[in-house]
């Protein structure tokens, strides 16, 4: 009886991670039409920066998290300033491959600085501690992750819907020409999008680098890629859709891992989000909350 709830909480935790990274992808994609594969690199960098700040420079953990997010946001803004405008004008193939290129540069650099072993510990305050809530055993990190992700995503929602910058970003996403005609500064949009996406990615990286998440490791990049199906499931045309899709993916993975018969093998929980993606594309291409998709001939 408690098992579905336990799986649900774990799934929500995972979903929070995926929601953060998927939002990062979605914000840059919608505002600048760039599928920014470097987001995976930011997740990696964020995790390692937090490790550096907390374990190596001995800053308190919350400060280290903020430092990691801030440095990553600055990094995102730097990339945006250097090539963001060119990428926005380029073809999708170019933007995908250039951002992959950035990722390919970042990964070995991170490994050269911090080494490539999987044994680094973030020394986060939660460790593997579990909390008893109403008969359930929940990882303390998961509680914090769900809470933090909810707060951060609410903040992003507020930014996109109630601030001038956010509305400008949404305007640029829905009709670029009209937005430019209204005097919206494209450089600011691009810079802000990349910076926000990077901050979200860094937070996801920190949370994923915790003891529960698996530690500070080179494979942190996988977290971002795993959240990609969430964008389709939630709806490519909606930023909120990415968050919802990310949560859905997390839940799916948790429940499939928990309930799938062993004959299906261990990899089924990694593949299940992609199966869901294919089903969604066949049955409801717009995703859960997206706009109807224009069919081609």
């Amino acid at each position, binding site marked *: 009886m408690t098992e579905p709830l336990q799986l649900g909480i774990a799934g929500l935790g995972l979903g929070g991670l995926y929601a953060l990274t998927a939002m990062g992808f979605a914000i840059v*994609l*919608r*505002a600048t*039409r760039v*599928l920014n594969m470097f987001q995976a690199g930011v997740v990696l960098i964020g995790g390692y920066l937090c490790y550096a700040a907390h374990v190596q420079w001995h800053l308190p953990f919350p400060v280290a998290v903020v430092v990691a997010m801030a440095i990553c946001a600055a990094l995102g803004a730097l990339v945006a300033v250097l*090539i963001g405008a*060119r990428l926005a*004008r*380029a*073809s*999708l*193939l*170019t933007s*995908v*491959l*250039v951002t*992959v*290129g*950035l*990722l*390919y*540069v*970042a*990964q*070995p650099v991170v*490994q*050269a600085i911090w*080494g490539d072993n999987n044994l680094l510990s973030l020394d986060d305050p939660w460790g593997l501690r579990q909390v008893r809530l109403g008969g359930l055993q929940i990882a303390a990190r998961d509680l914090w992750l769900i809470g933090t992700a909810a707060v951060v995503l609410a903040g992003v929602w507020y930014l996109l819907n109630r601030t001038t910058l956010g509305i400008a970003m949404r305007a*640029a*996403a*829905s*009709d*670029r*020409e009209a937005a430019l005609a209204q005097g919206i500064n494209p450089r600011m949009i691009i810079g802000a999008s990349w910076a926000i996406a990077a901050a979200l990615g860094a937070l996801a990286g920190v949370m994923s680098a915790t003891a529960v998440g698996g530690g500070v490791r080179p494979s942190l990049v996988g977290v971002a*890629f795993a959240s*990609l*199906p969430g*964008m*389709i499931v939630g709806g*490519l*045309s909606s930023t909120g859709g990415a968050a919802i899709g990310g949560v859905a993916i997390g839940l799916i993975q948790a429940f499939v891992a928990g309930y799938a018969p062993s004959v*299906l*093998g*261990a*990899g*089924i929980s*990694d*593949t299940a989000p*992609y*199966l869901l*993606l*294919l089903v969604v*594309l*066949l049955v409801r*291409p717009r995703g859960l909350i997206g706009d109807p*998709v*224009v*069919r*081609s*001939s």
Partner: protein
Amino acid sequence: MTTLSRIVRCYGAPIVVAILALALPLNVASPAWQSVLIFTGIGALVAVGLNVLTGYAGQISLGQAAFVGLGAYGAVVLGVRSGLPLPLWLLGATVTGGLLGAVVGPLALRLRGPYLIFVSLALLSLLNYVASSWTSVTGGTAGTPATMSLRLGGLDFGALSLGGMRYDLAQSMGVLIWLVLAVVMVVAGHLARGRVGRGLRAVRGNEAIAGSLGIPVARYKIVAFVFAGAVAALAGALYAAQAGYVTPENFSMDTSIEYLIMLVVGGIGTQVGPVLGAFVISAIPEILLLVSPSLPFVASPNSIGGGGISVDELSTVIYGVLLVVVLLVAPNGLATLWRSRGNGAAAALRSRHRSRGPGRRGDGTPSTTPTHPASRTTISTTPQRSTK
């Protein structure tokens, strides 16, 4: 255009490749460069297919490695478990790739925008799952030996015996792979110059107008999917044969991206581009290895621990730098750097890749008006380049 110049234009590259197939592998003695040759050949095969899919049909696939894997495991099933001879397992693997392409094509085509990227990633995930879990057929994560028959007529491509000399597996397979590459390049060239290629070029100019001219857009795009899938599977089968062993790890997103890098660095929409790009990408790790003693920050292959950046990692960095630099400086690859701009269809392809214009909406759906000057001229310029 004289007949000779037409032959050179159409068949020059494949002929050179065929000559290289006979000249190079048998004369290269060092195993390191032999493997560069082999990976160049296999990568070029996949890149030629991708060239048609991306360059002509405009579809971005991050999952070609799934087709390669399908071909590799298919070849194992047909060649090892069923013991079929070389022509049959090679053909069978190719056909499975084409079939999968025919299935995936309509799905990806229903939707505009970056959807194929996600579908191709889904395919990759599925392949990895099946390869890792269907242990009885694929050997699971440990992999399976790929020791199929390599005889064709009187030739044994496992150990060629020509003119009194005996050649080993790497050299013999090198010949086979490059010969197959030459043939595939000829087919790709015909596809690009023929009705399908011209139709797809018209579509890249303006899909609505092309459709209204009676061009069966969807059907031609599906042809591109089938071709790209078949060729990638063919490459996978050959890869399995020369490696002698297949594991799921061989077919990852990194592998898919490598093929895209080869294509993009070499030159989209050109005949030579895929081969050139494949060579550059395959040669880089080897060149780094040769040069590494004189680079202070590079860890030598024998040192353990943080002695610097390893050759593998440095290769990855260089791929990344190449991608960023080449794409921002020469978005259509190295092969196009010296091409003249007014080259009709090729120029239209390039300008299409370079800018999408202001008329596209945020969710990826293009507006219906043509947005780029090249799009208005493409339809009228394509027929003149066609060959009889």
